[in-house]
């Protein structure tokens, strides 16, 4: 796929494979980096949202007059004011821009307000009088399944369905609803252009998808809306879907003034989708030697009130339901239910997280039943390059060093004692040291990279060579992961020019880079950038009959023949749309070449447990990860450490608690995020194997750290306590009662 022209002969600083520093780092360290929250323009209004206090109700009437009567209020809009498509959605436009007749989840937007300041806007939003007839919410996903209230069902059948093994383990597993909790809440600014169009600067992972949905709901022509990448305080999946984007544009066009909106944290918890909670029923069968003979699973995920990406998350959960193991007889039934719970969608790991917790618990139980070492069981069944996916039958053609990952992790030493000798529960009056039990657990996880199932997955990038250096233009979103660093490194190494600026440009200036999700931008936008940069270098060398290019200019036979100042008198620009190897939709049995690439990681967790109070300290998490090629090792390890922390969070503390559809803990006091006191020591081994189609063989690295780290912590708690531990987050009562 990638054009690999000859590489520059001379080594360049901060090229690929080096831990180049972030170009936006200094601005962020000085407080000068502009986040969506920090935007300000003269004469701007502030927006706020009126939300449903009920998870399910009929709207009988909406009276906006009390809100409009407040001084400083410029507009109060309802569903009747949406000029175009009344609903939106990343895959299926089923979610109302503003609720019209019914509200289907707690916190659903009903009206939006623009006022002269934030406080007035919020007061006006609260003053909108909505009369509801409350209805019984459907909140139990198993009920929804029985009533056929579903977004999607998924069926996978592979191999002889009558196969059976002599050693059988069954289990039921549950995963709670996790929140991405990016530290920056949803925020944005919409600026009318004076000609009926609008410029949108809002938190996003995918500006072209925002653009399409804004255009549809505003009833505008595509060229009338420009969605601009803007500074983001984290994302982790929460920013794939539209939330305030259409609202901001509606208000801006209605008032003919710029409008800014920033969600408060409590509002953010209802304003974006969450990780799907899951219930999973498993049966593993093996022969006496530990060869997996058959795996059967039922996977239920709750999509909540609207579709978002539930179908894709469910498909992923089903495709990776067996994990990175060979098995010739597989049956998976998946269902993504529709309820009156908060909508769920993308979060780091995207379906693979939930099933990994279940399949790894099953592998441990199977090892126990066989009297076998759990790592030996995994090695014995390891899915490797050249094998067929147990679910889809797809032959894996890119590197998948499963055994090496497991062996490398197992060989990592466990330090005798962590420097921190703290007891679980911290400084509280908990237990005595000799009552604390240590446990160790392992888990392995696998996930696809990029978009699958025949989706036309592409990323466009443009590379220019100017008197000031090289420039990369892209609409790919930098969420903090370091794409802005990687793209510059790719250009340095492939073109030979050391000064590279990455510019995030709006939707009118470049085609889509796709979403910053599915661990895909290093491979996709990185692939586009490498190809554009390599082509541009080849064109320049051909034009000047040179054989090398660097900061000084074009060289031939070791002599500078054209100085850079003359090279850049011409306009040099190359735009490339990169596509990964084609995939296809699955057949009716879930079979086919549905994925473009895979990555895996293994984790080993060490925990200390207070069995009396059920408190857990995660002492350390070690990992080996299949990364293809680490383009920036420090960034890769940063992704690993951060991803592990989120996995630890899901394992022992992070859960949105629902009560009949109402979130009971929409704040950081009650939704517990790991602090630095909860952070385990982490050692990471990067396993590099050539052969992936990403630039220089790179694979995406963002998601694997979150996939099996949760399962490893659960396994360690199981090891320490002997408890079944069949749900995460593990609560004190799951250990102590």
């Amino acid at each position: 796929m990638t054009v690999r022209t000859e590489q520059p002969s001379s080594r360049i600083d901060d090229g690929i494979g080096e831990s180049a520093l972030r170009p936006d780092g200094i601005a962020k360290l000085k407080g000068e980096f502009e986040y969506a929250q920090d935007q300000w323009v003269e004469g701007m209004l502030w927006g706020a949202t009126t939300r449903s206090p009920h998870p399910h109700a009929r709207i009988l009437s909406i009276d906006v007059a009390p809100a409009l009567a407040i001084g400083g209020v410029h507009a109060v809009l309802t569903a009747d004011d949406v000029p175009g498509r009344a609903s939106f959605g990343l895959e299926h436009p089923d979610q109302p821009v503003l609720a019209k007749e019914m509200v289907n989840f707690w916190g659903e937007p009903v009206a939006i307000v623009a006022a002269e300041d934030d406080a007035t806007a919020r007061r006006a939003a609260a003053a909108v009088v909505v009369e509801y007839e409350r209805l019984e919410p459907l909140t139990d996903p198993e009920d929804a399944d029985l009533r056929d209230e579903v977004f999607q069902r998924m069926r996978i059948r592979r191999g002889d369905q009558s196969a059976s093994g002599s050693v059988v383990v069954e289990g039921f597993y549950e995963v709670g609803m996790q929140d991405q909790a990016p530290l920056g809440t949803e925020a944005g600014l919409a600026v009318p252009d004076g000609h009926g169009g609008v410029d949108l600067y809002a938190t996003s992972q995918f500006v072209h998808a925002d653009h399409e949905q804004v255009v549809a709901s505003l009833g505008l022509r595509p060229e009338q809306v420009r969605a601009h990448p803007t500074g983001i305080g984290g994302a982790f999946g929460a920013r794939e879907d539209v939330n305030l984007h259409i609202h901001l544009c509606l208000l801006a066009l209605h008032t003919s003034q710029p409008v800014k909106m920033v969600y408060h944290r409590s509002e953010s918890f209802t304003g974006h989708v969450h990780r799907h909670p899951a219930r999973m029923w498993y049966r593993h069968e093996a022969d006496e030697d530990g060869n997996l003979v058959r795996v059967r699973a039922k996977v239920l995920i709750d999509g909540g009130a609207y579709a978002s990406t539930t179908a894709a998350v469910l498909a992923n959960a089903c495709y990776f339901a067996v994990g990175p193991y060979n098995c010739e007889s597989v049956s998976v039934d998946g269902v993504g239910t529709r309820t009156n719970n908060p909508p769920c969608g993308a979060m780091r790991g995207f379906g693979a997280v939930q099933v990994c917790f279940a399949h790894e618990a099953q592998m441990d139980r199977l090892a126990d039943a066989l009297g076998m070492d759990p790592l030996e069981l995994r090695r014995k069944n390891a899915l490797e390059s050249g094998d067929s996916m147990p679910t889809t039958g797809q032959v894996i053609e890119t590197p998948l060093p499963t055994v090496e990952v497991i062996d490398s992790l197992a060989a990592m030493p466990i330090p005798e004692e962590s420097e921190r000798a703290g007891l679980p529960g911290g400084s509280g009056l908990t237990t005595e040291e000799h009552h604390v039990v240590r446990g160790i657990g392992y888990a392995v996880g696998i996930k696809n990279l990029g978009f699958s199932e025949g989706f036309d997955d592409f990323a466009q990038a443009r590379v220019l060579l100017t008197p000031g250096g090289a420039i990369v233009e892209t609409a790919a979103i930098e969420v903090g992961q370091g794409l802005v660093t990687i793209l510059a490194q790719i250009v340095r190494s492939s073109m030979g020019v050391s000064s590279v600026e990455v510019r995030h440009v709006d939707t009118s200036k470049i085609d889509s880079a796709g979403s910053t999700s599915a661990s895909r931008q290093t491979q996709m936008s990185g692939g586009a950038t490498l190809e554009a940069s390599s082509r541009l270098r080849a064109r320049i060398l051909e034009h000047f009959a040179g054989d090398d290019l660097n900061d000084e200019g074009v060289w031939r036979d070791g002599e500078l023949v054209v100085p850079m100042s003359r090279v850049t008198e011409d306009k040099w620009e190359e735009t490339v749309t990169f596509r990964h190897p084609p995939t296809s939709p699955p057949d009716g049995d879930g079979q086919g070449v549905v994925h473009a690439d895979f990555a895996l990681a293994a984790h080993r967790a060490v925990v200390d447990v207070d069995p009396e109070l059920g408190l857990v300290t995660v002492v350390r998490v070690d990992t080996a990860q299949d990364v293809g090629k680490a383009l920036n090792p420090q960034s890769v390890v940063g992704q690993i450490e951060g991803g592990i922390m989120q996995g630890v969070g899901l394992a022992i503390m992070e859960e949105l608690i629902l009560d009949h559809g109402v979130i009971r803990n929409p704040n950081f006091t009650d939704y517990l995020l790991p602090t630095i006191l909860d952070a385990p020591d982490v050692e990471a081994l990067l396993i590099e194997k050539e052969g992936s189609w990403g630039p220089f063989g790179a694979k995406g690295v963002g998601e694997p750290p979150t996939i099996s780290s949760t399962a490893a912590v659960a396994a360690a708690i199981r090891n320490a306590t002997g408890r079944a531990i069949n749900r995460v987050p593990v609560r004190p009562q799951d250990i102590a009662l």
Partner: protein
Amino acid sequence: MTEPITLTVNGLDYPVDVDMGRNLLSVLRTEIGLTGTKEGCDDSECGACMVLLDDQPVNSCSYLALQAEGKSVTTIEGVMPADGLHAIQRSLLEEGGVQCGFCTPGIIMSTRALLDGNPSPSEEEIRIGLSGNLCRCTGYAKILAAVIRTASDN
């Protein structure tokens, strides 16, 4: 009801009219225009809004602007020396302690308060000193490494 007050921020006096119930964070960001201090939770939990008040770290989201009158407020914009980055900033950059960066100003303010009071903290003391600052990106490892490095360079 507004009250005219003067806030001393990073050594400069700013006369502002503020509502009595208004928090310091909001006045810093919208009246004075210092947007380096962030709002992450409005609940004193995340530390993104950390500033120094007479050298003590305070969550400015939960502190009335009125109460800050007569005190010296230091924000992220006031941390940097004229000749480049503060040692904490340099360590965070080089150790890879910045990803999305939204927590970074608060982390720097807490670190500065910690090191001003205790130039050679143990790892445990660093963890306790930064336990009021949430970071969702890094898993804290590189932040911890950066603070350890800053302290050992002291």
